[in-house]
Each structure stands twice: as C-alpha cells, then as structure tokens.
C-alpha cells in the first residue's frame, strides 16, 4: 500500500506535490458525479457511469496498480473471454480494416447523439498506426504496422491477438485500451475480423 503513493509522488512532481486517490476522495467524487449527470437515465447510469471493480481500482491507482492489485485484476480478467460460435478466431481482414476506421456509434446525450443502432467500430486508427498507407493514425498506443509479419499467425498468436482485443486488461492491468469484447462493443465475429486485419499476410498492415 505504500508503494503506489511513492510512485504517484514521482509522477506528479512536475505539476503539484499531491497524491490523492484514496477511497474517501473517490467517494466524494462519486457524490459530485451523481449530482452532475442529472439527465442520465437509470439504464445509462448502469451501463455507462457505474464503475465495475476494475474501473474503480484503475481510477484509484491512476492506472498504476500495486502488484497485489495488478495480479488480482489479471486473474479476474483472464476468465472473461468468449469466442465466436464457429470457433474461427481469424476472420476477414477487409471487414477488420473497415472496423479500424469507424469512430462513430454509441454517442448519447442531447447535443450530438448518434442515431440508435449506428454502426460501432474499433476505431483502431485513433490510437495505432496500422497500414502504412493511412498516415492519419494516432500515437496513444504502439505502432502495429507489420504486426503479423513480425509474429506470424500460428494458432497461439491468433489466440493471443483475439484475447488481447477482447480484453486488454487480461494482459496489462489498467491498460488504456478499451475491453472491446467484455463490454460487447465489438462482437466475437468483429474481433476475429480485426485479428485478420492484424495477422493475415494479405492485410495492408503486413504489406
């Protein structure tokens, strides 16, 4: 319990010598959140505001959980995978390429909501460089150019890639990457298509 505090002090030295993140602050913040999102419906509250245990822990530890919390997250998240009904973890890279560019869907509220049922994608390009031809690629995550060329597509690599997209926190606790499969943001089939975009030798990611 001492370790994270030391870490936080170092991390925040550039701005202010503050190390919050205790349970009392978290509870106080939740109170403010309750008051500040008055138009959220009960369903929106449950699916979008209510934190699951992992979200609450990663928030408290500023995404740098101490070892015992990190192992706890890993163990729980490794039990979350669901696979496509047909068992194929590598789908169609062309579909995966489309999903990588779709950043719409799931916006709510009164100012600029998406029409209900609007297609959701992985929006991989927001954070990752993938096919070299797409230069408008973000840099929040690592470059994935040549992902399959570097790793091949042996069954264990396919499985790892599928599970990483399904739930990144099963590998890196408090990873910044959305848990696309766990939240049902992408279907198992869409995740398999994304796997193909990364691993298929024909995919522009590997050209």
């Amino acid at each position, binding site marked *: 319990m001492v370790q994270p505090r030391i870490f936080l002090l170092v991390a925040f030295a550039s701005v202010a010598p503050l190390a919050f*993140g205790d349970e009392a602050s978290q509870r106080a913040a939740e109170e403010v*959140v309750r008051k500040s*999102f008055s138009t959220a419906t009960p369903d929106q509250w449950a699916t979008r*505001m209510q934190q699951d245990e992992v979200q609450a822990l*990663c928030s408290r530890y500023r995404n740098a959980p101490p070892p015992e919390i990190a192992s706890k997250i890993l163990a729980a998240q490794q039990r979350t995978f669901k696979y496509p009904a047909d068992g194929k973890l590598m789908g169609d890279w062309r579909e995966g390429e489309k999903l990588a560019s779709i950043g719409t869907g799931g916006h709510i509220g009164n*100012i600029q909501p998406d029409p209900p049922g609007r297609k959701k994608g992985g929006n991989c390009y927001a954070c990752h460089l993938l096919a070299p031809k797409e230069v408008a690629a*973000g840099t*929040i995550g690592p470059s994935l150019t040549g992902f399959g060329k570097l790793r091949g597509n042996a069954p264990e690599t396919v499985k790892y890639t599928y599970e990483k997209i399904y739930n990144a926190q099963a590998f890196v606790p408090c990873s910044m990457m959305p*848990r696309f499969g766990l939240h049902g943001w992408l279907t198992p089939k869409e995740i398999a298509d994304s796997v193909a975009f990364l691993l298929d030798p024909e995919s522009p990611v590997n050209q």
Partner: protein
Amino acid sequence: MKWRSAEPARKRICVCLITAVFGAALAGVAVGQDNHAVDEIQKYRQMLQEGNPAELMELKGEELWTTARGPKNATLEQCDLGLGPGKLEGAYAQLPRYFADTDRVQDAESRLVTCMQRLQGIGPAEATRGWYNPNSDLEALTTYAAARSKGHKIDVPAAHPREREALRIGEELFYRRSGPLDFSCATCHSLDDRRIRLQELPNFQVRASAQSSMVTWPAYRVSQSAVWTMERRLIDCIRQMRWPEPDYLSEAIVDLQVYLQHNASGGVMEAPGIKR
C-alpha cells in the same frame, strides 16, 4: 466597441478568405506525410491567429456586457468575476474560484449566469438556453471575459478550503474510468506528445503542456465553425467517452476546470485561441 469599430468588417472578409483557402489546403494535408501535415496545421493556425474569427465573438460579448438588458434593464459592467465589481482585466485567468456570495466554486460561465440573474434579472433557464449553439450569448460573454485576461498569468492556487476540495474532486474525476470503452480523461491526456489521429493531445499532468492548452481556451474551432468555451470542450470530451451528458455549469465540470487551471497556473493567457 468604439476603439476598433472600423476593424471588424475588413477583418471578417479577410477571415473568410483565409478560412476558405486554407480549409481546402487542410483537407489535402491528411494524405500527405505525417509530420508535414502537423507542420501545415501549425502554419494554418499561425495565419488564422492574425484574423481569428473568435474576435467577432469577442465583439458580440463586449456589446452584451455593455448593453442594458433584462427585467432590471442593467448592463453587466458591475459583474464581479472574482476581483471585485467591474474589475474584468485578468479576472478570467484566476477562475474557477470560491465566491462567498453564492457559497460555491464557480467558473467563468457559471459566474456570468449569476451576474445575469443578479444584475439584469435574467434567470438561469433563460441565460443558458441554447448555450451550446454557435454564437450563443454565453459563448460570446465568456470569450469577451477571457480576452480581457490576455497577457495575464493563469493563477488558480486552490488555497481556499472549498477550492482545495474542488481540486481534489477534479483530480479524482480526471482519472475516473467508466463506460463501455473504459475511458477517463487520463486515457488521452496523461502521456507526452501523443495524438488521436492527427490531433495533438496535451498531457495535463505536465505543467508546460497543460499551460499550452489552457491559455488558448476559449477557442475558435475550425472544424465546428464556432467558438468553444472550456465547458463546451469538456462536455464534448465526455460525450466522446460515451458517457451521458453532464449538466452545463455542473459541479463536475467546474471541479475538472479547477484541476486543469491549477496545473496550468503560470501560463500566460492568449485566448481566444484557434484550433482544428
């Protein structure tokens, strides 16, 4: 109004031309080389800074500030934004802050609504109606108030106990993850020199980076053809995170601004800025 009355019309034409020409250029750069694209956007920003369309909003704000309006037929000239009634120069740079008369920590926009109610008799519902529409009165007034802090240092020490509490909550909110994408503000804003697509992202944990962002808000957003205030910016970030919409002027949005302004303290205000 008076000291620059001949300027706006000329400036407006100039701005439109620049927007048209460079808007086309911007559309082209996305297919160009990566760093080159970022350089071009920088150049574009510099050129627009010469004739920032936000100045029109500033003028509208000045007119709203100095015109008698509302049931009390009064101007906003005696509004107290924290430095005393009528003391506007440099006030925005020290917001949000605690106000004893409302017993709340307030940002520029919530304080302007207080002034509209108290001085002019314009109720909050009317004052905030359509606040998010381009050219709304609150957008104009906030831009005007921010521009009167140009050259002043952001100074939000959060020394008052209520400000301290707002800072504590604001920091907590910055790291608060939830929703179907597990996002928090920190997902995009706690790493150095990163981008979403081609958009550069400030790291609000680092003073210099927080400063470079906060000194330029409110800003004219080319992609929206409108000036966005910090409330608007934050509420849209939260929309992008796929959370429900927070209430305009809510405590969460004010507390987040305390955290951001505290981290950006010392930065010299340049608002209104200009952005993608």
